[in-house]
């Protein structure tokens, strides 16, 4: 059982004078798949980045707790898996080299079995030793899921998880999202109806703007 608790308290984000959203509050305390939706420019990606501790809110705070203990922002990266179209892997390395380097930088052992099994789930096993720069955009997107899952995170943040994916890629991603949603919190930011159909609860961002 994953006792993760994610909450936002009065989050406001402005870029210069431009208000993105204001006084946003939510609590995700049960394992499951949560959706963030809204029109283009409503701040879905911004909110996902704030939840992931990549950028700071203009005011308010995000609380991450595991087993009722706060996770401080310095250690947040060890607990979350993140996938986004703007996340870029090292193109001069192969998938294997990328994830081996990343595991070592995280300070964990590179789990070859888990790597091979995830590569198989995401239909990339036969390309594991090829340089990432030779991958198609869909293959790069699938590799990001493997990156997000390799350290067995406690929470998954997915920004437009199926961008650039073909039908087979989408199917493999949906299968994994459903599986992960059973024992952890998965947050999806998307406008794709098929992505949002997976979600138990949806947060619509237009509702939080003045």
């Amino acid at each position: 059982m994953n006792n993760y608790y994610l909450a936002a308290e009065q989050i406001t984000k402005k870029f210069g004078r431009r208000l993105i959203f204001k006084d946003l509050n939510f609590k995700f305390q049960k394992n499951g798949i949560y959706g963030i939706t809204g029109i283009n420019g409503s701040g879905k990606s911004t909110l996902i980045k704030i939840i992931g501790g990549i950028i700071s809110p203009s005011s308010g705070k995000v609380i991450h707790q595991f087993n009722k203990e706060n996770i401080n922002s310095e250690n947040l990266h060890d607990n979350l898996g993140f996938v986004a179209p703007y996340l870029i892997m090292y193109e001069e390395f192969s998938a294997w080299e990328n994830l081996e380097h990343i595991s070592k930088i995280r300070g964990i052992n590179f789990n070859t079995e888990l790597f091979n099994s995830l590569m198989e789930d995401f239909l990339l096993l036969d390309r594991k030793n090829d340089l990432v720069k030779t991958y198609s955009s869909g293959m790069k997107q699938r590799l990001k899921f493997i990156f997000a899952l390799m350290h067995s995170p406690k929470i998954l943040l997915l920004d437009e998880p199926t961008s650039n994916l073909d039908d087979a890629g989408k199917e493999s991603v949906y299968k994994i999202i459903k599986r992960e949603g059973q024992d952890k919190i998965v947050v999806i930011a998307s406008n794709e109806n098929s992505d949002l159909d997976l979600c138990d609860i949806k947060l619509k961002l237009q509702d939080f703007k003045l």
Partner: protein
Amino acid sequence: MKPYALFKKDYHSELRTRYAVNSLAMFIIVALSVILFSIGNEKVPQNLTGGLLWVVIFFSAMSGLSRAFVAEEDRGTTLLLHLIAKPSTIFNGKLLFNLILVFLMNIVITLLYSALFEEFIIRNILLFLLTFFLSNIGLAIASTIIAAIISKAGAKGTLYPVLSFPILLPLILISVMLTSYSMLGTSFDQALVEIMVLVCYNVIMLTASYMLFDFIWKD
């Protein structure tokens, strides 16, 4: 171990792409050639050769050391680093990479310089080695934090030397002075004040870098 893993990643990346090493090698060759051609058959005063050595070192550092962070920003992999390591791990890893690059670069420059300029004669080798060691550490620390600051900016190429000059000026001045002392054969006791200034510069730069880096790295 985590900073070392980041260093190894950068090292492997450098072996594949050769961004920093190629630009450094080209710059060292070009800078030394320009100095040689401009001097021609003239006899260079001995104290000037020490200064010229640091001119080559300063501009070579400007051409290659910013790669530590600029390469991550250019390739769009900064977010990936955010997601896998603490800011202190990232700074330590990049600093380790720059330290090794600075030492290798300056060893090559000094050896080439000694071979090409017969007026460059060091009489107090221990003093020169200490100066070389402390100055390289200072140069690596300062270039790493400046690279982190300018990596977010638009005109990185121009901003790096402009921002580096005032920050590195005390280091370069003291290094030139100590190099000139070691060429004159001055004793350690007489050069103690300058050595302590160099040590203080390194301590201040390192402390300021650790305090600043969290703010630079986030947002």
